[in-house]
């Protein structure tokens, strides 16, 4: 889901053949990636905690 | 002295502030608690006195607080509110003394007197309410403050009685709220106006107005114990006697009846209510209640239960007086607000005395009570005679006006209801009186914690019923005197009918 959103954003950044792409969507994507990674890290940590409890 | 726009608020605060302070007191601080109660009750009396004088002179008192744009909390004073406020204040004072005596050695007294004060605050608030919003506001607050009083003893019976009470009153509250909001959405802020705020509104909204009326009456009828919404009242008898006395004479039941009077006279107006057929419907409900209550009272052996059904019946006299078109019936209904209050509270005080002093809870145990407790039984007799309608006790005056008003309006059936009810009243009160005075007392009373000293029971328990019985007698004997309840009722009727 997240990757899909990021892809869209990157595509949106296109501003034409010769100009540099629009930086704002890139900022969004980068932030989004950071957030997604942190959230995944937390989720993994919680999942691990769950696993421990199950034993 | 006190600015006109603060006096109503002061009257409300005079029981709110002591009440809140009492909650904070430790159980053992009797003296401080009593002092707070007394200071509150007496200061309220002073403020009310100022109010009476002012209203009689035609001054305007109004306290207004904006809750939201277009929603104002309004406290003001007209003749009807003064009547109810005075009744509540006087009886609160007397009941406080009684409760102090009754609850001696009971636990949780700070909690009790705290909620007691809140209960009176709510009653005063709705008496002084100047619009329907304010009335509903304090009406709900009354439910909240009386529940802990009914549940006070903490026994399973008390919990059950309190639960039933809450279910009925919260349900009624929802109905009242719906009716009130609906009316406001049709007609704007519903201000209590002499002659009825809606009197010029009739037209294509009639069906809605009728529906709203029934919603309002249903919501009010729960507290006023209109059949079939009365079920909570006998159950609530588990509460301590001061609570039953206050609830039945002053606070809850009267609040409902008072609300009905307000809705008919100051919201719809008598003329509109008549033309929509609402008065007829109300009269029917009131009559059914009057007869049903009296019939059920006949079969009750528990003294408080018998008095409870008597209340169900008697409070509907007020509704009946309101429902019969004509100033004389109005006078009868309105004055009965006061008279029934004073008489019924006397009866409940006495019932409490019998229970506390002798452990007597049932009519069948009351043989010869008059020998052991003559003064209490004398007060009880006065109250009972008043209920039946025997002159010169105040009840006679109310019934006289009601009957006269019924005849004048051509409602002869209402007269029949009154007569039948009086006969039934006699049927369930005279046996008690006969037992009390003329039968032999048993060898031992069910439970006599302390034998008769100089006074038949403690002073705090004895004086209140005597005082209220005296009032009941005085209101009847001196009904024609200026500033008697009857005078006030006549003033109210005059202003309502534009005479």
């Amino acid at each position, binding site marked *: 889901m997240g990757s*899909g959103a990021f892809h869209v954003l990157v595509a949106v950044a296109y501003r034409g053949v010769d100009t540099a792409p629009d930086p704002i969507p890139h900022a969004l994507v980068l932030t989004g990636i950071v957030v997604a990674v942190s*959230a995944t890290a*937390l989720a993994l940590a919680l999942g691990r905690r769950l696993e421990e*409890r199950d034993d | 002295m006190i600015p006109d726009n603060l006096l109503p608020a002061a009257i409300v605060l005079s029981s709110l502030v002591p009440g809140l302070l009492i909650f904070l007191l430790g159980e053992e601080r009797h003296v401080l608690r009593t002092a707070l109660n007394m200071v509150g009750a007496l200061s309220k009396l002073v403020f009310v006195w100022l109010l009476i004088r002012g209203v009689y002179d035609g001054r305007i008192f109004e306290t207004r607080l904006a*809750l939201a744009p277009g929603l104002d909390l309004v406290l003001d004073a007209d003749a009807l509110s003064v009547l109810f406020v005075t009744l509540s204040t006087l009886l609160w004072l007397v009941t406080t003394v009684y409760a102090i005596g009754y609850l001696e050695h009971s636990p949780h007294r700070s909690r009790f007197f705290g909620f007691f004060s809140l209960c009176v605050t709510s009653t005063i608030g709705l008496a002084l309410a100047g619009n329907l919003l304010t009335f509903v*506001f304090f009406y*709900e*607050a009354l439910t909240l403050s009386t529940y802990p009083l009914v549940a*006070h003893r*903490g026994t399973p019976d008390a919990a059950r009685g309190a639960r039933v009470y809450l279910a009925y009153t919260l349900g009624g509250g929802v109905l009242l709220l719906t009716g009130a909001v609906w009316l406001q959405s049709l007609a704007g802020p519903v201000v209590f106006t002499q002659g009825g705020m809606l009197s010029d509104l009739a037209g294509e909204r009639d069906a809605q107005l009728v529906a709203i009326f029934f919603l309002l009456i249903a919501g009010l009828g729960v507290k006023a114990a209109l059949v079939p919404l009365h079920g909570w009242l006998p159950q609530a008898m588990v509460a301590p006697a001061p609570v039953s006395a206050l609830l039945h004479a002053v606070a809850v039941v009267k609040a409902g009846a008072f609300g009905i009077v307000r809705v008919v006279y100051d919201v719809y107006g008598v003329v509109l209510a008549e033309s929509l057929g609402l008065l007829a419907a109300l009269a029917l409900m009131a009559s059914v209640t009057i007869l049903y209550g009296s019939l059920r009272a006949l079969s009750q052996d528990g003294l408080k239960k018998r008095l409870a059904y008597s209340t169900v019946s008697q409070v509907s006299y007020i509704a009946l007086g309101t429902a019969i078109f004509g100033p004389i019936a109005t006078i009868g209904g309105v004055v009965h607000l006061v008279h029934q209050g004073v008489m019924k509270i006397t009866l409940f005080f006495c019932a409490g005395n019998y229970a506390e002093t002798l452990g007597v809870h049932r009519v069948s145990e009351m043989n010869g009570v008059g020998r052991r407790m003559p003064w209490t039984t004398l007060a009880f007799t006065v109250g009972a005679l008043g209920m039946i309608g025997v002159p010169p006790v105040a009840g006679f005056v109310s019934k006289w006006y009601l009957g006269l008003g019924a005849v004048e309006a051509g409602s002869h059936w209402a007269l029949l209801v009154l007569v039948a009810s009086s006969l039934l009243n006699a049927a369930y009160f005279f046996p008690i009186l006969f037992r009390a005075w003329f039968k032999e007392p048993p060898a031992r009373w069910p439970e006599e914690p302390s034998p008769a000293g100089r006074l038949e029971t403690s002073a705090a328990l004895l004086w209140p019923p005597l005082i209220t019985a005296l009032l009941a007698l005085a209101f009847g004997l001196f009904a024609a005197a200026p500033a008697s309840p009857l005078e006030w009722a006549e003033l109210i009727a005059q202003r309502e009918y534009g005479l």
Partner: protein
Amino acid sequence: MIDWLALPISIPLLGAVLATAFPSRSSPIGLTTALLAAAAALIAGVLVAEVGPLRSDLGGWGAPLGISLQADGLSAALLAMANLVSLGISVYALWYFPAGSRRHFWPLWLLLWTALNGLFLAADLFNLYVTLELLGIAAAALGALTGGRDAVEANLRYLLVGLLGSMTYLLGVALLYTGLGTLDLGLAAQSLTAGPLAWISLALMLGGLLLKAALFPLHFWLPPAHAQAPAPVSAALSALVVKAAFYLVLRLWVELFGPVAGSGAASLLGALGAAGVVWGSWRAFRAERLKLLAAYSTVAQVGYLFLFFPLMAASQLPRQPELLGALVLLALTHGFAKAGLFLSAGLLQKTAGHDRIAELGPALRALPAVALAVGLAGVALIGLPPSGTFVAKWILLAESLRSGQWWWVPVVLLGTLLASGYVYRLLASAFGPGAQPVAGGGPAEAPAPIGRAIQTPALIMTLIAVVLLGLGAEPLWGLMSGSPP
């Protein structure tokens, strides 16, 4: 020149960093930060009340290039409530957590606070996303703090659900950016026109946010997460985090999407809200544990908030501020009341060792101040006078009838009756027999004695909900009229 809008964000952020760096002193750092942050937020709120909407451009870069903060009546009101409640929670948390968890609690809590303030003050769509994410992660981490299996599972679910919501929201933002070329709220509002772009991005963004705001039927994750979290965290979750998501829905609706969305969408929101009211109230009525009851009650209260949407859509312009004010009053009152309820629940749980409603009688009787707080919270949840809910509910009902959408009325009444039912169940045992237990003569587990100080935050919050907001809320409408129509 002090930037009063930046302070409420930077102070807790700084505090979080410090609390992480000095774990042994996390509590004093935490409390100091709490006081300062709350003060800054309140000052900002007062400024808005006096001066009108405020805007600040960080680093001097204005829109559409830089990060802007803005505060109007709506955000000021919610900001004030959130910070006051957070201060209360912070005081309470000082006592609640054993020494070991404190070092973990404070950094996470301060980060959550940062996110909260940031969310209320953000002026562009992307910053909203960032703060939303931070909020969700911090909240989930806090919720799982006790480490118990159920708590971890519930909050993991919360985290994943939240993530789904955020991604959906982000997609919507991306689409909007494509069409409008700006992320600033104000500029976007000017350029947005009705059409597929608007509707799809509305659906995406709102969909994500509704998931986070727990509107029925997207509420499923909430009851377990809020019920399992430690009491102060539950208070924050129900009173604040959910409100923040709702605030976003409201903000986007009022500023961006409302004019283009049409009444069908508004009615849909209202219908879902109605379902939430009934379902949430019913489940609360049947709940056996106090915190679960409170959590379901939150679902119901969120439903009430959404009932305002169809009314606002259908009403003429003059009525809008009145409805908006009532909506905000409801949100504020619930925030204080629910926080107070959860904090009280925590105290009861510590005293009794459990939170099974049927057996809480002795604990209620031992802590009369807590019982009072629960009672007041109950009054606010039912909507009895003199709570703020009574006023808001009156306006809601009146407007339903006035605009002809009378079908919301039975929903509200049913919710009220059910709420009366569950509050009654909660408090009935408070009047049980027996005198107050003697101190020290408690049950064999000998729970920690509960001092008066710790009972204060809950009591104060419920008093605010019931007395202050009920009787003194009129200035709120004046405050709101400074906010955009």
